[in-house]
């Protein structure tokens, strides 16, 4: 062994160096993505504050600008939804860091705010859009994961069909956020996927497109 010992050590040193470089690169990539999300969050947060103030303003001063407020709220919702998808994809490529959890929580809170704002606007403006909250888990069991994947696709199709008449609000229930935990208690959310239509109708388990379509139509009447 002594005759070749240097080869084995050199191989080990090379391995450690390349391995560490790879891991550092992985960390850098993940940190960079989190940086992107943080920047995006700041922008969305600003937009959100703007939308909130508008709602407050229309609520207290001018009711005639309801359409504008709804549109602003909807635009914000879409943006948060898109960003949520991006975070999900980033999450799948995150193996080394757990910082993304914090970003997920921040976005989940924004979604809650969006929901509450949608409730307020709906009442204040007497709007006929439907609030559809989709409760899902980030780490579901095997069966629930397949159900969630299917439900997410069905909801995407519904959203495409109804556009601004449907406020789709996906909320993760397993991020240990007090506000979401309160909602889980309030609406008795025990499993995923669960849907909540206009804060009244709770639908547990996978729902088909046709069933949801009919319910949404009924809600709009």
């Amino acid at each position: 062994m002594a005759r070749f010992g240097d080869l084995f050590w050199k191989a080990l040193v090379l391995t450690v160096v390349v391995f560490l470089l790879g891991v550092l690169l992985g960390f850098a990539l993940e940190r960079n993505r989190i940086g992107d999300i943080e920047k995006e969050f700041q922008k969305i947060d600003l937009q959100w504050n703007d939308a909130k103030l508008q709602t407050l303003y229309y609520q207290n001063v001018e009711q005639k600008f309801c359409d504008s407020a709804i549109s602003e709220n909807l635009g914000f919702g879409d943006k948060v939804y898109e960003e949520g998808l991006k975070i999900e994809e980033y999450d799948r490529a995150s193996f080394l860091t757990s910082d993304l959890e914090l970003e997920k929580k921040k976005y989940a809170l924004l979604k809650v705010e969006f929901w509450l704002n949608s409730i307020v606007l709906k009442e204040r403006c007497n709007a006929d859009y439907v609030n559809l909250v989709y409760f899902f888990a980030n780490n579901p069991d095997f069966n629930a994961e397949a159900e969630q994947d299917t439900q997410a696709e069905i909801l995407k199709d519904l959203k495409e069909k109804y556009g601004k008449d449907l406020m789709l609000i996906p909320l993760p229930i397993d991020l240990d956020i007090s506000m979401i935990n309160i909602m889980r208690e309030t609406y008795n959310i025990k499993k995923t996927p669960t849907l909540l239509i206009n804060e009244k109708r709770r639908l547990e388990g996978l729902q088909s497109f046709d069933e949801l379509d009919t319910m949404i139509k009924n809600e709009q009447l």
Partner: protein
Amino acid sequence: MEFITGVYLFFIFVSLYSVFLVLLIYFRNRHNLYFEKPTNGLYHISVVIPAYNKEENLLQTVNAVKNLDYPKDKLEIIVIDDGSKDKTAEIAMKIDGIRFFKKGYNSGKSDTVNFGIKNANGEIIAIIDADSYPEKDSFKKMIGYFDDPETGAVTASCFVRNTGKLIERLQAVEYFLIAFGRKILDFVDSVYVTPGSLSMYRKNLLDEVGGFDTNNITEDIEIAWKILKHKYKNRMCLSAKVYTEVPDNLKKWWRQRLRWNIGGFQTVHKYRNSFFKKSLKMFGLFVVPRFLISHVLSITGFFVFVYVFGRVIVQKLMYWIFSIQNGNTIFEVPRLFLIPSVFTFFIFLLFAFTLAFTYIGLKTMNKMDIGFKASFTILFYLVFYLTLYPLVLLHSLYLLAAGNIKW
């Protein structure tokens, strides 16, 4: 970090280490790959050819040995019929210039070879399978290694003779790379198999260690380990060539690989006490651990693969079933996110290293005249053929656990 991520990273670390070790050994010795040791004098060689049901090949094998560029007075050819059911014995009896023994019963290759060794007069024993054909100059190229008293055995590059079918061509690529890999191991005194297609042994060493183990189904691995354990070296002469017949269908191939794996396990079990034994030098510190670790990683890797990809497939199936049940479309254009991660870097790196090893190996073996057909074979070899290894390994483990190792 999740547990599975840790497992992946560990696999990557071990793979990188193996790759760098091979590359370092190669670059240090690349000018000596085809080094042939000039000999002080030609040794008397007894060629032992065990034959079982080899009526189609035996004559050609004996003729190839007779045509060797080696002094005839220093060459003894011994053919032993291991109780063949075909005309092997009849054919052998008619061949001139050989010593033929008919055992009259079938007792396996190890016992037959041991029988030949007992009856041999040479100071070097060359074992040649009855379906292998050494090149004319192979003996002269190999024999010089025995001038080193520490050399216990010398083996040659084994190439595939029948290359008509895809499975045969895949094995041809594999055999080139095996020969190259074995030469790399030779530079660190770690040749762990002396294949039956053509290997030479010091007769007094074989007598000293009790010959081939009749309980082991891969006698060529076991004898190589035994020699290493007795602190002799196994050497690999890359320029000496022997051609052999390989399985021509998947069933035979599978059976052959089961035998190799099970024999490998038998050997590891037999020499388990040599694991990390410093006094046994490279054998204890590298050969045994490497063999054991590569098997463990291969099996673990297979289960990880099955878990990860099996989960994805089952998930996708469930998604399709749920989608159909709920009137949702199942085929949709996926959102395309190309997100690099720590594994992207390592996967590309390891794939590049695998390609580099294949390229260097084939180039070393002077097989780089690659046309379309050969390129396809190499690609098929890298993408599909290698993935069969863990499956055979798993089947071998099952047979071993079931105690079903009759051959």
